[in-house]
C-alpha cells in the first residue's frame, strides 16, 4: 500500500508516522481573506527558479514520479499544533485526487457524510499553485496545522489520510477556533538561526466533522525550506531544527523541535538528488580504491559496474534511486551499495552525504571495518559513528558450556541482556513452578494414601487422588517447559553466536581489493608444472 522503497534509514525508524503521500491538484476555492504584511500570502507571489543547486531537479523529479510512488511524509504532533513534513517526492506521491476521496470515503460512515460530500473533497486543493511554483527547486514542505480536539482514524490507511492532510483536510472533532490556536506565522530555525524560506503560504483548513464540512476561518501555514536545512553538520551530527509558530496573540512563539530521526529521514530521502548532483561539473573518472561484491539486484549491479569503472556520480545516483523503490534488495546488497555510494560521495568531497550513509550502515553493522585501502576520511566516519557493540565472537563450545547456566549463553552483550534475563527467568520460574506443583502433589498424595475410610475429611478420596495427580501433571508440564526453555535457550545462543560470527566475517575489512579479497575462499586453478598438468585446489 505504501509503494515506496524503505531505505535502510527508514527501516531503522519504524515508529515515525511516515507515509507516502501525494499532494493534490484542484483549484483553490474561494479566497476571501487578503494577506496581511505579516502573514503568509494565500497565493505564491512568484515562481521559484531552480537556482544553482536545483538545475535539472524538475526533470529528475518528474522522472522519479513516473517510476512510482516514493518518499515519505511525517507528522509531528505538539500540544496545540501539528506539523506535516513532506519532501518533493512525497508531495508528488500524495497528489492523486483519488487518495483524498478514499480518505473521506473511509470516514463516510463514522462522520455520516453523503456521497456528494465525499466526492466534493476531490476539489479541495488549496496548494496547487504553491506546489507548481516550487516544483523546480528541491524544497521540503513544513505544513503547520491547529490540532483537532479528537482525530478520527477512520481513513482507509495512512496514505489517504496524509494525502487529505496535504490538502488541508482534517477529520474529527474540533474546538471553536481561537486566536491562540490560529497559525499566523512560522519560522524555521536551524541551530538557532532562522532559515531562509523561499516560499511561504497559508490556506484554510477544511474540517470534516459529523455530517458536515466546517470552514470556520481556521488556516494552516506552509513553509518551503531548502533541503540543505536538513543536512548534517561537518561532524555528521543532525542539526537542531525548530519551528517557531506564532499565533498572532502571544508575543512568544510555540517552539516545535523536529525529531532527529525525522531530520535524518528527510535528508536521506533527498540523497538520491544529492547523488545526481555529483556528476554535475565533475564527470571525471576516479578509480575507486575499494571493491565490493557484485550485487544480485540488477539495478544495483548497473550501479556497481559504474562504480568499478570510476563513474562515481552515476554509481551513487543509481544506487540511491534504486533504494527508493521496492522490492527491497538483499541486505548485503543494500549495505555494499550504500558503502559504494558513501565512497563516491567521499571521493567527490561531499562528506556530509557520505557521513549520512555511513551512519546508517554503521547503525546496523556497528562492527564494520573498512579495508586498509579505504579513504582515511571514510574510515574516520566509521569510527566516529560506531556504536558500542561486541565485535568479537565467542567460540561455540564456550557458548555451549555457558548455556548450561540458563541465559548465560545469551549474556554476551548489553543488546542481549533482556533475552538472557528472559531465558534465565523463564527457566527458573518454570522449574520453580514445577517443584511447587510437585511438592503439593506429593502432599496431596500423602493425604490420599493415608486415608483409611470413615469420611474423616469432607473431601472424597477420589478427589484427593485427582488433585494429587493434577498437581503432578502440572509439575511435569512445567518441567518440560523449563527444559524446553533451557535447551532452547542454549540452541538459540549457539545459533545467535554463529550468526554473529558470520556477520562479523561479512563486515570485516569490507572493500578489499580483488587480489586480497579471496582470502578464506577455495580457488580452483590450472596447474602446469614440470612433469605435472592438472587442476589445483587451494584454500586461501
Amino acid at each position, binding site marked *: 500500500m505504501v509503494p515506496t522503497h524503505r531505505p535502510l534509514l527508514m527501516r531503522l525508524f519504524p515508529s515515525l508516522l511516515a507515509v507516502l503521500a501525494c499532494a493534490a491538484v484542484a483549484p483553490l476555492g474561494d479566497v476571501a481573506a487578503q494577506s496581511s504584511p505579516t502573514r503568509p500570502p494565500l497565493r505564491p507571489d512568484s515562481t521559484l527558479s531552480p537556482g544553482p543547486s536545483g538545475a535539472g531537479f524538475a526533470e529528475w523529479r518528474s522522472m522519479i514520479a513516473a517510476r512510482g510512488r516514493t518518499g515519505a511524509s511525517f507528522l509531528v504532533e505538539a500540544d496545540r499544533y501539528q506539523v506535516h513534513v513532506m519532501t518533493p517526492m512525497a508531495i508528488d506521491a500524495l497528489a492523486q485526487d483519488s487518495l483524498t476521496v478514499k480518505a473521506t470515503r473511509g470516514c463516510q460512515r463514522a462522520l455520516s457524510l453523503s456521497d456528494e460530500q465525499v466526492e466534493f473533497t476531490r476539489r479541495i486543493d488549496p496548494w496547487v499553485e504553491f506546489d507548481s511554483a516550487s516544483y523546480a527547486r528541491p524544497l521540503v514542505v513544513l505544513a503547520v496545522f491547529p490540532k483537532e480536539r479528537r482525530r478520527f482514524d477512520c481513513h482507509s490507511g495512512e496514505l489517504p489520510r496524509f494525502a487529505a492532510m496535504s490538502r488541508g483536510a482534517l477529520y474529527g472533532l474540533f474546538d471553536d477556533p481561537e486566536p491562540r490556536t490560529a497559525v499566523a506565522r512560522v519560522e524555521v530555525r536551524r541551530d538557532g538561526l532562522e532559515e531562509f524560506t523561499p516560499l511561504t503560504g497559508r490556506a484554510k483548513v477544511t474540517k470534516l466533522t459529523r455530517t458536515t464540512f466546517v470552514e470556520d476561518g481556521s488556516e494552516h501555514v506552509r513553509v518551503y525550506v531548502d533541503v540543505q536545512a536538513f543536512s548534517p553538520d561537518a561532524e555528521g551530527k543532525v542539526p537542531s531544527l525548530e519551528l517557531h509558530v506564532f499565533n498572532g496573540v502571544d508575543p512568544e512563539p510555540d517552539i516545535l523541535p523536529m525529531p532527529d530521526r525525522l531530520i535524518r529521514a528527510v535528508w536521506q530521502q533527498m540523497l538520491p538528488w544529492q547523488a545526481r548532483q555529483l556528476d554535475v561539473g565533475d564527470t571525471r573518472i576516479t578509480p575507486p580504491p575499494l571493491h565490493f561484491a557484485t550485487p544480485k539486484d540488477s539495478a544495483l549491479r548497473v550501479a556497481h559496474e559504474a562504480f568499478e569503472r570510476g563513474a562515481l556520480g552515476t554509481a551513487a545516483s543509481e544506487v540511491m534511486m534504486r533504494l527508493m523503490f521496492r522490492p527491497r534488495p538483499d541486505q548485503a546488497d543494500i549495505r555494499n551499495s550504500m558503502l559504494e555510494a558513501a565512497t563516491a560521495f567521499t571521493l567527490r568531497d561531499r562528506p556530509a552525504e557520505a557521513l549520512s550513509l555511513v551512519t546508517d550502515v554503521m547503525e546496523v553493522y556497528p562492527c564494520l571495518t573498512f579495508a586498509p585501502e579505504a579513504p582515511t576520511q571514510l574510515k574516520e566516519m566509521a569510527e566516529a559513528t560506531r556504536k558500542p557493540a561486541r565485535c568479537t565472537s565467542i567460540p561455540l563450545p564456550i557458548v555451549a*558450556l555457558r548455556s*548450561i547456566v540458563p541465559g548465560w549463553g545469551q549474556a554476551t552483550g548489553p543488546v542481549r541482556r533482556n533475552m538472557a534475563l528472559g531465558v534465565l527467568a523463564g527457566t527458573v520460574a518454570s522449574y520453580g513452578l514445577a517443584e511447587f506443583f510437585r511438592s503439593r502433589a506429593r502432599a496431596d498424595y500423602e493425604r*490420599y*494414601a493415608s*486415608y483409611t475410610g470413615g469420611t474423616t475429611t469432607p473431601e472424597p478420596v477420589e478427589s484427593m*487422588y485427582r488433585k*494429587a495427580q493434577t498437581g503432578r501433571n502440572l*509439575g511435569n508440564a512445567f*518441567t518440560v517447559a523449563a527444559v524446553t526453555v533451557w535447551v532452547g535457550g542454549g540452541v538459540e545462543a549457539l545459533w545467535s553466536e554463529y550468526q554473529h560470527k558470520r556477520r562479523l566475517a561479512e563486515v570485516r575489512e569490507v572493500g578489499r581489493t580483488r587480489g586480497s579479497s579471496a582470502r578464506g575462499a577455495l580457488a580452483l586453478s590450472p596447474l602446469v608444472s614440470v612433469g605435472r598438468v592438472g587442476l589445483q585446489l587451494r584454500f586461501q
Partner: protein
Amino acid sequence: MKTSRARCLATMVVSVVLSSCVIEEPFARDNPWDTGSDVVLELTGPDSVHSVGALIDVVLSSSKPIPPEGVIVWKSNETGEAGPPPETQVFTAGPARFVVRQATAQYSQIAVSAFLDQRIVAWQVWVGQRTESLDLFCGSRLAPIACDATSMAPGSSRIISSLALDGNTNPVGRMEFAMARGTVVSRDPSVVSTALTQPNAAGTVTVQAVGAGSTWVVMRIENGIDSVRVVVAP
C-alpha cells in the same frame, strides 16, 4: 587439565539438573477406599447356612494390605429396608461376622457386604433351615397318642402330624418346602396309602386305609427320619 575439569563440572551440573527434571510417573491409585483404585477386594465365606442362629464368618481379602485401623462397615439385609421384615433375616454380629436371626425351610440368597466408604464388596449366602431331626405322631402336639392305639377302618383316612427341627433345634418354618425335599412312604401300600399326602405348611401326612392289616408309614426329610405304625381292622 583445565578443559577436562570444566567438562567434568559441566557434566555434573547437567546431571544434577537433568536428574531433577525427570518426568514423574502417575501416582499409584491403590487406596482400597477409592472406588477407582486398582486394588482388588474380595469377600469370601460359606456358600450356605442351614439353621437359625448359625454364624456366617466372611473373610475380606485385598491385593494391598488393608490397615487395621481402616474403617469398614459390615452390612447385611437387616437394616434400612422398608416394609415387613423378610422371613430370612441375617444380622451383623461383629467385624466380618453375621448371624441368622430368622429363616425357614425356604432357602434365600442373602448378600453380606463390607462397605469401604462408597466401595462395596459383597458375598452371597444361601440361608434356610435344614431338617436335622423329625418326630411323627398322631393327636396334637400337646397330647400325642400312638397311631396304632386305635385301628382304622378300610377306606378311612387319618392325619399324622410331624415336628421338624433344624441344627440348632429350632422348629422348621414353612414345612411345605421341607416336605417337598422329603419323602413319605407306606411299607405296605395294600394296608394304607400315602397318596393323599401333599406338602403343607403344617407338615402333616394324610394316610388312607386300604385293607386289613398293619404297616409302617415312614417320613424322611433331609437328615430327619421317623415312622409310625398304623393298624387297619375290617
